[in-house]
């Protein structure tokens, strides 16, 4: 299985390493050469310096035969547009896009783009954690 990871910050680099550990062929793309270090000293996969909207670079990365594309640059709109291109131009079956703004994540999800919204996930987890601690303390009081 082959994945292209676009954006090699904290999130992208970790996803790349997980997939690589799971036996995938992984190609990582980022504009900034420096972030290669995020992948760790022992990174054995490919790393390409380039912009995710550069069609020639995407072709060079092997997007046409990729099973999955994960887009996680630091720009929501950049991620959305790269995701749409991967889907509609290169017909990649599994495209996952990070979108921090919950409203935009929901809108593009409705339109068929698989968006993951860390903000919504954090809101859910924090709210749940707060509610659980409330239950725990109430229970504690009743004992």
């Amino acid at each position, binding site marked *: 299985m082959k994945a292209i990871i676009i954006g090699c910050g904290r999130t992208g680099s970790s996803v790349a390493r997980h997939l690589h550990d799971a036996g995938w062929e992984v190609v990582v793309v980022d504009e900034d050469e420096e972030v290669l270090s995020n992948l760790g000293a022992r990174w054995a996969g490919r790393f390409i310096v380039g912009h995710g*909207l*550069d*069609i020639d670079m995407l072709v060079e990365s092997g997007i046409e035969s990729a099973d999955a594309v994960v887009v996680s640059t630091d*720009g*929501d*709109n*950049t991620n*959305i*547009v790269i995701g*749409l*291109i991967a889907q*509609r*131009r290169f017909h990649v079956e599994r495209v996952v896009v990070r979108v921090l*703004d919950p*409203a*935009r994540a929901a*809108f*593009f999800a409705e*339109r068929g783009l698989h968006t993951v919204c860390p903000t919504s996930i954090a809101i859910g987890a924090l709210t749940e954690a707060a509610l659980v601690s409330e239950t725990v303390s109430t229970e504690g009081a009743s004992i």
Partner: protein
Amino acid sequence: MYVLIAGGGKVGANVTRSLLRQNHEVTIIEQRPDRFRVLEEEFDYRVQRGDATELHVLERAGIGRPPDLVLAVTGDDEDNIVICEIARKRYFAPKVIARVNDPRNQTHFDLLGVAPTVCATSSIMALIEHEVPESDIIRLLQLRDDELEIVEVPIGADSPSSGKRIEQLKMPDGTRLISVAREGRSEIATGSTKLEVGDRVLAILQPGCEDELRRVLLKH
């Protein structure tokens, strides 16, 4: 007409000014605080501060009405694409116009159906082609929706078509000559029109027919 403009740089501000002069209703969205203050001095309540790719900012600016026209003219092509997608698909804005900053991104606007677009660099390049006399086929207009292109062809001394009537030319499929301009006057091209050196011929063609048109009119 109600126009919503995303992006208050030079383009956004000048278009706002021009539309207001024509008595249109305009709201302009600008994100950068210092630029926002400058715009607010001139346009007062018509400027909204915020990121025009955020739904609540667009809603505050009245996208729900929806506007008759949405202009996405920020300096960021991805932002402009997203603004147009949201305006058309979520708020059913009947018309959008997008600015393309980097001509290499034109293909992304086309792929996603964001049209019409305006790209200053491409316009300037087209003008350069037009102004440089040696250039051969000059692209004048792309009719994107109809997949047709209108071009101008200067007939030179070595053109195989000079001295011939149009009906004598084997015009390739997917091309047609429209008019012939000679000494400042234009005439509709008919079969009996004779091409002469110095003529400027307008042609309409389907994409991909340029080489064949060049072969018939220009190459030997």
